[in-house]
């Protein structure tokens, strides 16, 4: 059965989405990147991807936990195709509109290049028909995919996934395969993009491997999870991880290392904010202020050209001083907001963050902080025997980042599973009761603020040493929000989550000022972050890699349902027990 109402709704939404990505110029700028030579560009992938996803969603129907959705590739394909057709027509109408009326005075992207990109440079009547046909076919394929057998789905998605990954991450692949230069030249076209035959081989290989070693990966993860803390298996996994982390920076080049460093700084800040938001439940939107304290503190203490006071200390001596400064800043911000309820706290901390930035920029404090000129000539991190390491040497600098990330992760891990972590968890769940059972919430909150601030100051100190100059525009609200997005996408309260969140978001899409691995996204990343924040809150509030406690909290309702079922069992157990006692 095809749910026509659903087809209509999602067809319109898909058409709107396609028109929207065209209107903001995403298709055009993605078209500049060739994925598979010739012709298959990232822009095309975007169009196909949207069509396929909507086709799949329509075919999957409304999720209903009680009824297993019937999987039938024919009706799925038809539903998907219809959805695609509607989407194609809507998008074509939009392109036609742009082609007919000149609205570029108000909408700078809605002009000729957009029409060309959307019609595959075939001109209006023909190109629009092709567009509609392509979108319909892809959506139909997406719909049909839902009805395919599990092994086909697994093989197909692996194959597509690997091909797209090889194409998208051309830079990383060619850097890793640097030693096999001829192979790289063989599979990638000279001007970028996979060679078609290489794409076919990669796809086939991935498919074959996925069927050959079906379920092995999952089984292995399970085994590692079940293994005991000190067991050989686990030790070798950890050893392998450590080795990978040590070797990786050596084999990838400067660009990737640069991205890893930036991601590392965000992992650090994410871990710090995770303590404040994820563990203690205090939504701090001015977290960047502590990063600024770390960065400016280091700059003033180490740079010879600091305007007012230039002691020219070594980075290693500046670090503890900066940590103390950040801790004081944490107390200073934390104390006035301590009795405020959650949402006021969010806005007030946001205000604090902005006050700090405005003051740093103001003429009043320019004699100390350098105002708009910032502070320059910050030396790097001196290492005995290796000179001074700064951002110009990303392959070495990255190890400092790793070191501090490890430290912060260790602190978070220890704190989380201790008396302090439990008091934070209790406070997050019910502040009044936490207070009533003997937890000083004032202390617990301040401790969270201070710990978070100190971790942010690590990031700030590293940032100063890496970049060599600090300007106020590295510290605006945007940074606070992006750190929050990292924490939320990764999973509030989850250390692994923050790491993965920062790598995916900052490393691939890009940080507030710097592009990520996919530089094409840099214009749109903030839009994507916003959408991601909403999506995660609606569909997966516990994040990609959730912490156990948090996901319980956020899915409280569903679990209570289970608990109710569970209670049936519990009840019999309880009464059996009672029978025995009476």
């Amino acid at each position, binding site marked *: 059965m095809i749910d026509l109402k659903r087809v209509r709704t999602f067809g319109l939404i898909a058409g709107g989405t396609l028109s929207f990505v065209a209107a903001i110029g995403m298709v055009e700028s993605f078209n500049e990147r060739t994925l598979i030579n010739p012709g298959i560009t990232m822009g095309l992938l975007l169009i196909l991807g949207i069509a396929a996803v909507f086709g799949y969603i329509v075919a999957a129907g409304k999720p209903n936990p009680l009824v297993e959705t019937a999987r039938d590739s024919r009706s799925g394909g038809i539903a998907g195709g219809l959805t695609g057709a509607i989407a194609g027509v809507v998008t074509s109408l939009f392109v036609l509109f742009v082609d007919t009326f000149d609205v570029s005075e108000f909408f700078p992207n809605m002009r000729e290049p957009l029409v060309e990109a959307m019609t595959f440079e075939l001109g209006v009547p023909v190109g629009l028909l092709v567009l509609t046909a392509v979108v319909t076919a892809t959506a139909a394929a997406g719909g049909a995919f839902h009805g395919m057998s599990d092994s086909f789905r697994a093989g197909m998605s692996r194959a597509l996934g690997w091909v797209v990954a090889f194409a998208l991450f051309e830079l990383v692949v060619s850097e890793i395969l640097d030693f096999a230069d001829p192979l790289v030249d063989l599979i990638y076209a000279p001007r970028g993009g996979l060679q078609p035959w290489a794409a076919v081989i990669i796809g086939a290989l991935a498919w074959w491997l996925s069927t050959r070693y079906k379920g092995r990966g999952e089984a292995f993860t399970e085994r590692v999870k079940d293994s005991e803390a000190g067991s050989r298996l686990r030790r070798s996994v950890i050893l392998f991880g450590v080795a990978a982390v040590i070797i990786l920076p050596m084999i990838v080049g400067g660009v990737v290392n640069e991205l890893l460093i930036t991601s590392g700084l965000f992992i650090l800040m994410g871990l710090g904010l995770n303590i404040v938001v994820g563990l203690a439940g205090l939504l701090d939107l001015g977290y960047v202020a502590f990063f600024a304290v770390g960065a400016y503190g280091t700059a003033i203490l180490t740079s010879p050209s600091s305007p007012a006071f230039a002691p020219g200390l070594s980075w290693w001596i500046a670090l503890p001083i900066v940590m103390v400064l950040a801790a004081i800043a944490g107390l200073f911000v934390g104390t006035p907001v*301590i009795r405020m309820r959650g949402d006021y706290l969010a*806005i007030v901390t946001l205000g604090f963050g902005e006050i700090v930035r405005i003051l740093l920029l103001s003429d*009043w404090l320019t004699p100390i902080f350098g105002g708009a000129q910032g502070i320059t000539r910050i030396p790097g991190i001196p290492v005995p025997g290796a000179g001074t390491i700064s951002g110009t040497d990303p392959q070495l600098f990255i190890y400092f980042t790793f070191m501090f990330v490890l430290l912060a992760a260790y602190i978070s891990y220890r704190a989380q599973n201790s008396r302090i972590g439990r008091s934070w968890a209790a406070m997050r769940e019910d502040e009044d009761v936490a207070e009533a059972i003997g937890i000083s919430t004032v202390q617990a909150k301040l401790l969270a603020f201070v710990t978070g601030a100190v971790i942010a100051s690590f990031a700030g100190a590293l940032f100063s040493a890496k970049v060599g100059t600090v300007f106020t525009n590295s510290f605006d609200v945007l940074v606070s929000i992006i750190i929050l997005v990292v924490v939320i996408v990764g999973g509030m309260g989850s250390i692994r989550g923050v790491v993965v969140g920062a790598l995916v978001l900052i490393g691939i899409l890009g940080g507030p000022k710097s592009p990520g691995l996919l530089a094409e996204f840099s214009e749109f990343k903030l839009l994507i972050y916003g959408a991601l924040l909403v999506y995660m809150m609606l569909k997966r509030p516990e994040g990609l890699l959730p912490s156990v406690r948090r996901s319980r909290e956020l899915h409280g309702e569903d679990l209570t349902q289970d608990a109710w079922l569970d209670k049936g069992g519990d009840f019999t157990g309880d009464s059996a027990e009672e029978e025995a006692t009476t």
Partner: protein
Amino acid sequence: MTTTTSPSKTSRRFRFNWVDSFLWFIRVSALIAIVIGIVGSVQLFLEGEGPTAEQWRDLVISGLSTGFMYGLIALGYSMVYGVLGFINFAHGEVFMSGLMVSLIAATLMFENGFWDANPTLALLIVLSISMLVSTLVAVLAERIAYRPLRGAPRLIPLITSIGVSFFLQYAFAGIFGVATRSYPPAPGNLGNDVEFLGIAIEGTKLLVVGVALISMVGLWWFVAKTKTGRAMRAVAEDKEIAGLMGINVDRTIVTTFAVGGAMAGVAGLLWALLFRAVDFLTGFLPGIKAFTAAVLGGIGNLPGAMLGGVLLGLFENVGPLLVLNGLGIPAVSQLKDAVAFAALVLVLVFRPTGLLGERLGSEDRA
């Protein structure tokens, strides 16, 4: 950084006093700084330095007109907070979206001469477009992003609204481009000075205050006297019981967002008249300041929102020169926004429930 639970009574008592004394320290030093600043400024004024009497008057007038605009945006925050108990962080973007879209109509009318030929009609058209778009955006945000989250832990909708705010900002940046655009100048002879109570005031500023006051009275009437307004207050008190009493809770909440959005749309027109420059980030600062205004007046309290807006407008326009200049700080106009944020912090330290107290519902406020 170490937590200790030393058993001696004195240290425990001391620790609690420590937070309180820190708060008192902030209160007292803020007061002292303000007093010294004002004394300094008065001295400067008497010595004939600093701004002249006329400049002061102009500052007060701009403060009032900006303040009324903040007040209108603040109404949206206040109503949503009153009814749903969460801060709709994206409300500033609701305001921005109406402003952006109405810019198209204004520019077109300006280009073909309609703008200056029929000022009243032109402004009404712009006003209705701005209101319509803002309302639409507010309602859509509620439907898509906030409704599924009713009953979720408190911070979840707040975080969602931050996402909505970001999404709207950059969606508008994508569609309209990132360049700052300018609204056509106030139509007809609105830009000229008008004699009012013996003072020459720019016509637009007078209009801004007038429009804001009319909207305020209209809104008050709506909430206090109409059936929908009563439903809103009931939902604010207790959603479940209101639902049991036969009130359509969903519709009432949508209405709340719609009315808040419409007020933001009106504020959009006022912004266009006052400042003229518009870009995709235009909503951010006024949004936060309007929230400050809502808190200042007592969140959930509609007259409070208006009062808070006016006071905040005065603070940030007059405050830097009145207080900071007197303290001998250079280039005080740069610190305008910092003054507004400092006002927020101080209000919450001095009087967390705002000047007129919180109203509407009192559900889960703990």
